[in-house]
């Protein structure tokens, strides 16, 4: 067997060391990971650019439509305000109390021998109730009865149009004065009536249910 001498042992060892150099291997690994990361970054950048492009389209569309939308919103708000205001104003108008018909009813109730000297009326409680006080003189053989007739007449007439009608004598007193009506002397009485009622029409009683045939 021949003797084999490896004279290049050190050189080979150095070459092996160079090949197994951890720094070199590390740099290669780093370069590999760097390349992967770069690719991943590129993919993300592409997606971002694509999203930004879509956003630009949407934004362009919005910019085009925005003035008309803003105007429409403003107009809608304005119209809503007008509708609400008109509704409230209509409620205000509808809830008013009309004095003309009341004066007419009172005029119809006053007989020739029951003179009215004073009328005071006012809205009470948020326009729902009305308070009226009237004063006058009544003449007749029984002046108090004339005044009472007037009260009854008012009760009947006002009860047809208004609800919760209450009419009470505040004062009713005989006067010493004698008045001549149609040639006959009659005694007089001074009356003061207090009237309260609700302007809503009276509630009519519900019709009784029909009896079922047996």
């Amino acid at each position, binding site marked *: 067997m021949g003797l084999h001498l490896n004279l290049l042992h050190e050189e080979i060892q150095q070459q092996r060391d160079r090949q197994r150099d951890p720094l070199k291997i*590390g740099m290669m690994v780093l370069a590999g990971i760097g390349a992967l990361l770069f690719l991943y*970054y590129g993919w993300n950048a592409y997606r971002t650019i694509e999203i930004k492009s879509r956003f630009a389209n949407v934004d362009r569309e919005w910019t085009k439509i925005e003035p008309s939308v803003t105007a429409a919103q403003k107009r809608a708000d304005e*119209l809503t305000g007008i509708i609400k205001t008109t509704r409230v*104003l209509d409620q*205000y108008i509808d809830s008013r109390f009309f004095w003309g018909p009341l004066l007419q009813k009172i005029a119809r109730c006053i007989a020739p021998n029951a003179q009215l000297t*004073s*009328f005071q009326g006012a809205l009470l409680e948020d326009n729902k109730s009305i308070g009226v006080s009237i004063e006058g003189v009544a003449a007749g053989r029984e002046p108090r009865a004339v005044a009472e007739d007037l009260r009854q007449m008012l009760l009947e007439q006002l009860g047809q149009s208004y609800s919760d009608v209450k009419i009470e004598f505040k004062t009713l007193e005989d006067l010493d004065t004698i008045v001549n009506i149609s040639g006959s002397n009659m005694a007089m009485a001074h009356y003061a009536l207090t009237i309260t009622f609700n302007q809503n029409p009276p509630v009519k009683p519900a019709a009784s249910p029909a009896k079922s045939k047996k």
Partner: protein
Amino acid sequence: MKKLNLRKDQIQKIGLSLMGFVFLLYVYFSFFLGPLNRSRNATLQAMSDRQAKLSSSKDDLTRAATLERDAKNATTRYAALRALNPEGAPIAWFPPRVKVFFANEQLDKAVARLEGSGSLKQSELSGWAKYQWAIDLPQADYATLGKAIADLENAEPLLTITRLTISTLPDQPQYQQVDLRVANVIQKK
């Protein structure tokens, strides 16, 4: 298992490589991928907002068109109510108007005075104010007065008579003296 024998300089090199790796990751996430992701997320959020606005804008346009159609009566009525009162301060035009109105009803010498004004409690009427007036009619007969009041209530829908006092004149019992307190709703201009 073969034991990995590393020399000191090799261990240093491995450590150096690991440090480089960590530094690379830090730079990558902090200065490249992080900002990119943040920018993408912000764009996505903005796009989502825009798309929501776009879809709601179509509803808004439809709603406004429908409202415009439906509110035709209300707008006409509103315009009519606004037109009831002229421009300018009510104190300037209301008393002469009342005087002319009652003169046309055969009731002369009507005098209107401003008693006060204030806001209305309804929030919808924030642009409107309530004016309280006192109207004196020194001489009127009952029938003419009743007709005049009825005409006034019909002609002025935003006017409410809050108090009415009628008393006979001592020397002329066929005539009455009238004191009216009215409230008028007028748009602030």
